[in-house]
């Protein structure tokens, strides 16, 4: 009957068991995968969009949005540390024994049963063999102990004890790494949040309006946060993002951004990001001025300041509003990025929210040979136009024309929802490189008198050509031309389809559509010719007709554009901002120490084999004969050891051959 082991022993055995250790390693690996597939620490609304409300909640409860800080993940890590520690505690007495003892009292029977064991008879004196054996062992780096028994001698030798140091170093190293990580972890913040002593801020408000509960102590042991500073500005706080909100960490000094620079390679790719910083600290006699860049942080008072990001710091932009309809004329605007402006002067109220300015935009541009190059297309401005109902459309407008299929366009990207791909409006440019030519054509289409004039003259001309005189038909054609042009200029092709659908029954629609298209086309051409004539062009070239085609394509898209104006960037004064990351991580050196232990340990464990050799000698009755057992164990590099044992046997055999 086996006796039940005490409960504590069972727990120890379970915690220190290899099965648990391997299971934990695999479970951590699998759990880690989740965090790489599901993007971590994104704003919550984006998760809702992706998963829907139901799954969003389930994933949130499971802590999948910040999996590596979730309680269950940390618990598994804690288990790994406990398991490793238990393993060390359980194995250490055995290892100490291994290190101390030579096992010289081993039995003959055990020696014969070993995997690497061989017996031989030598015609040689026992003393001679013993001497040779000792020399060989010493030469091979073995330490040994002699045991004189009643009728035999055992030489117990071993080498490679540092293998066990490898075991300790790797396993203790792992624990040290985890503890170092713990020092730098957010556990204190999580606990404080749990207790309710701190409360993250969710609103994007100025620092002065943030509640006290969202501030961390300046003496906080470890943190990692970000701050954006515009050129010429100072900060003494940084922000720690936490789930969909943030905490404020006060700094023991002030940081000022003097200048931020991006340098570029000849290809237009950024070469370096640099920030000239000044540190003001009451403990310093003089402020420190230093330039930081990527890979070259600045460390002050144990806080490392990294170049992490960059952006706009509130650049000044000059904006010109080109109305698509002459009625919507509004004055030019001088504004700053991150500020909102009311656009007055129209019947409807709009708000213009400037969100970004970029001096460089590197885009793939196809040249006339069809080769794609990364080119800088110059400055751009990003803004939102919000209507009275609060609906906003986002626009990205480039300052300079961009070449597409060998023709230059003013490009404006739009999207109605954040995260959507941008759709682009391509406005053809006139001979001066502006959008004025297009706007003039568009305005002319909306000018009833001009349209009537153009429609009349083209209709009369056509009727004369076919020798037709019918005032009624003429009038009818002119009227439909005016009406269609009107519909097209305000609502595009969609408007015309809608108009047809409303006025004609299904069977007639296709035919009407065709007829209308012809009429419209003639009218548009007429207005375009009129527009050109006003400019003094009477013989349109191919280029003019390309412009005409491009204009129509752009106009067809206008009803979807949403804004009553094309907002043109005409001038700017760039003010940049640098994104700094600041960390205080007291655990870093602890982790490095653990890493060093781990690396040393791994090499010792793999490349130092712990070996034991026993040479058992029993003098026989016949003089100068001796029976020998050659046995050994190794825990690594078995094949090499086998080879060595074979050589050893041959060596001793040769002793008896020689005598």
């Amino acid at each position, binding site marked *: 009957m086996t006796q039940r082991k005490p409960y504590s022993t069972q727990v120890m055995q379970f915690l220190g068991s*290899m099965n648990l*250790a*391997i299971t934990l*390693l*695999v479970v*951590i*690996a699998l759990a*880690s*995968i989740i*965090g*790489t*597939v599901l*993007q971590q620490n*994104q*704003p919550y609304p*984006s998760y809702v*969009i*992706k*998963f829907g409300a139901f799954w969003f909640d389930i994933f949130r409860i499971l802590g999948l949005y910040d999996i590596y800080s979730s309680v269950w993940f940390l618990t598994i890590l804690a288990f790994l540390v406990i398991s490793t520690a238990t393993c060390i505690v359980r194995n250490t007495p055995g290892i100490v024994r291994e290190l101390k003892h030579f096992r010289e009292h081993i039995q003959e029977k055990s020696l014969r049963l070993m995997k690497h064991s061989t017996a031989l008879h030598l015609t040689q004196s026992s003393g001679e063999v013993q001497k*040779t054996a000792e*020399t*060989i062992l010493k*030469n*091979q780096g073995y330490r040994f102990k002699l045991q004189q028994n009643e009728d035999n001698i055992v030489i117990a030798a071993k080498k490679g004890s540092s293998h066990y140091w490898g075991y300790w170093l790797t396993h203790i190293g792992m624990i040290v790494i985890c503890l170092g*990580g713990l020092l730098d972890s957010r556990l204190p913040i999580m606990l404080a949040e749990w207790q309710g002593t701190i409360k993250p801020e969710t609103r994007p408000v100025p620092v002065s309006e943030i509640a006290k509960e969202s501030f961390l102590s300046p003496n906080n042991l470890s943190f*990692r946060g970000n701050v954006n500073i515009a050129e010429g500005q100072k900060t003494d706080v940084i922000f720690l993002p936490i789930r969909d909100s943030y905490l404020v960490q006060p700094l023991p000094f002030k940081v000022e951004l003097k200048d931020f620079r991006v340098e570029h*390679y*000849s290809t237009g*790719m*950024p*070469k*370096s*990001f640099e920030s000239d910083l000044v540190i003001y600290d009451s403990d310093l006699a003089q402020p420190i001025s230093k330039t930081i860049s*990527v*890979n070259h*942080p600045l460390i002050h008072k144990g806080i490392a300041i*990294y170049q*992490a990001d960059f952006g706009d710091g509130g650049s000044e932009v000059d904006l010109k509003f080109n109305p698509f309809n002459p009625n919507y004329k509004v004055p030019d605007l001088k504004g700053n990025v991150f500020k909102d402006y009311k656009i007055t002067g129209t019947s409807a109220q709009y708000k213009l929210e400037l969100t970004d300015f970029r001096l460089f935009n590197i885009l793939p541009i196809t040249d006339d040979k069809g080769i794609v190059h990364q080119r800088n297309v110059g400055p751009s401005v990003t803004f939102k136009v919000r209507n009275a109902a609060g609906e906003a459309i986002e626009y990205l407008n480039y300052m300079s024309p961009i070449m597409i299929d060998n023709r230059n366009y003013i490009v404006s990207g739009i999207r109605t929802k*954040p*995260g959507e791909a941008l759709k682009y409006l391509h406005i053809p440019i006139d001979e001066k490189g502006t959008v004025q030519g297009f706007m003039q054509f568009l305005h002319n289409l909306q000018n009833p008198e001009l349209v009537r004039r153009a429609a009349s003259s083209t209709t009369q001309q056509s009727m004369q050509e076919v020798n037709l005189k019918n005032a009624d038909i003429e009038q009818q054609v002119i009227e439909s031309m005016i009406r269609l042009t009107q519909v097209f200029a305000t609502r595009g092709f969609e408007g015309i389809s809608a108009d047809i659908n409303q006025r004609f029954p299904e069977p007639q629609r296709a035919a009407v559509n065709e007829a209308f298209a012809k009429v419209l086309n003639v009218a548009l051409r007429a207005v375009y010719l009129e527009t050109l004539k006003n400019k003094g062009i009477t013989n349109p070239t191919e280029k003019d007709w390309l412009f005409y085609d491009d204009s129509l394509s752009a106009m067809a898209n206008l009803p979807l554009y949403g804004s009553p104006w094309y907002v043109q960037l005409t001038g700017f004064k760039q003010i940049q901002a640098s994104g700094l*990351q600041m*960390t205080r*991580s007291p655990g870093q050196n602890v*982790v490095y120490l653990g*890493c060093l232990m*781990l*690396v040393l340990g*791994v*090499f010792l464990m*793999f490349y130092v084999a712990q070996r034991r050799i026993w040479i058992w000698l029993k003098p026989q009755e016949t003089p100068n004969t001796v029976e020998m057992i050659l046995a050994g164990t190794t*825990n690594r590099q*078995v*094949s090499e050891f086998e080879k060595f044992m074979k*050589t*050893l046997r*041959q*060596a001793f*055999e*040769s002793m008896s*051959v020689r005598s």
Partner: protein
Amino acid sequence: MSVPSEALNELLNKPSFFQRIKPTDWVWAALVVAGGLFAFVKYAHAMDIYEQAFLILAIPSMIALGWSWRAFQPYSVAVTILSLLGISLYSGVYANGETVFGLKYLFSSQSAVMWMSALFVLATLFYFGGLFTHHEFTLKTASAITWTALVMGFVGLMVRWYESYLVDPEFGHIPVSNLYEVFILFCVITGLLYMYYEGRYRTRTMGGFVLLVISAAVAFLLWYAFTREADQIRPLVPALKSYWMKIHVPANFIGYGAFALAAMTSTAYLVKYYYNNPSRLVAILVPSFIFAGLFLWILLRDLFGKEAVANPSFTFILSAATHAGMIALVTTALLAALGYLLLLPSTQKNFPSLDLLEDITYKAIALGFAFFTVATILGAMWAAEAWGGYWSWDPKETWALIVWLNYAAWLHFRFSKGAHGTPMAWWAVVGLFVTLFAFLGVNMFLSGLHSYGEL
């Protein structure tokens, strides 16, 4: 059988360390010191303190490597001479690469890499040819071709390093900065590791298996170069401009190369094992084919099915499953094909023993694990300097950890439980796919997810 007294003498009068060093070893050491010091004197001003330290430390490391693996000596000499030849042919003009014969057809980095690619594929064929025909000379030729491929690969990297400065002095960087460059590195390192074991165990018959993974890498390399113009020399992004890259990436690729080698020796193990135990092969292959077939069905339905899947996250899972299925299919097909080829009984005679294959697998994984540990730690230290934290659970970091945990578990199984045989061999093969995902999948797949996820 060797003369017994020799064995005794060897053990009794253990030659001292310096007695074991041959005259050629001293020549080697002198060359390395001379080369290292020359480079230091000439270029130290252009290096930062860390790079100077790397150069100085490289001298004893190279000497030690050459002394403990003598084949490395002529190899490095050949690489050095040909690289210098290639560099001198440029005579400081990048356009010479298109006009000078020696560059256009031999030593410009692109030509050298093409030579490497072609030679590796050729060597694979020779290795398999020699295995099936028992033709020792064919196997020796395969080794020679592999060495030549390795020389050309390394020369390609060295010349490319120089070329990057010729394109624009500001672009200059060590060619381990993009997938194209690291694939060359992967081929060269895996090949060198293999040649080390080939020399050490005096067996050439497993060469075909190892070169198979190199040939696969070559196929990817060529596809990548031709379709994506990845062979263009581009400047470094600011985050990569650091001395850390010079040690982190090569250390990582010693790990990757060793893991790949282990997976291929395990494949050889499995092929040999299942040849001798065909009934077990059926037990493995039938479920594999069902598994692969299932995913193939999903793939076809995905490609040709009328129901376009609207939900993007579902599409992602589906395409992930499809890719996994394709990988499973290819693996199975590959193993089946190899198994079939090896059914030729002729190959069995001179094929390495299961024990030896297992031993090499273990050694490669141990080596890979040690270097992968170092590389990951170096990566963490670099991250601390560039990103402000030694660990951020970024996908690449996390996958490095997953690979590390996977092999840590493998090693624990082997050491503490004494596990061996087919399960460990299968695990080593699966390990390659985990490694592959960490090395390629994260860049191609998760970054795609990343940009998709950026709302």
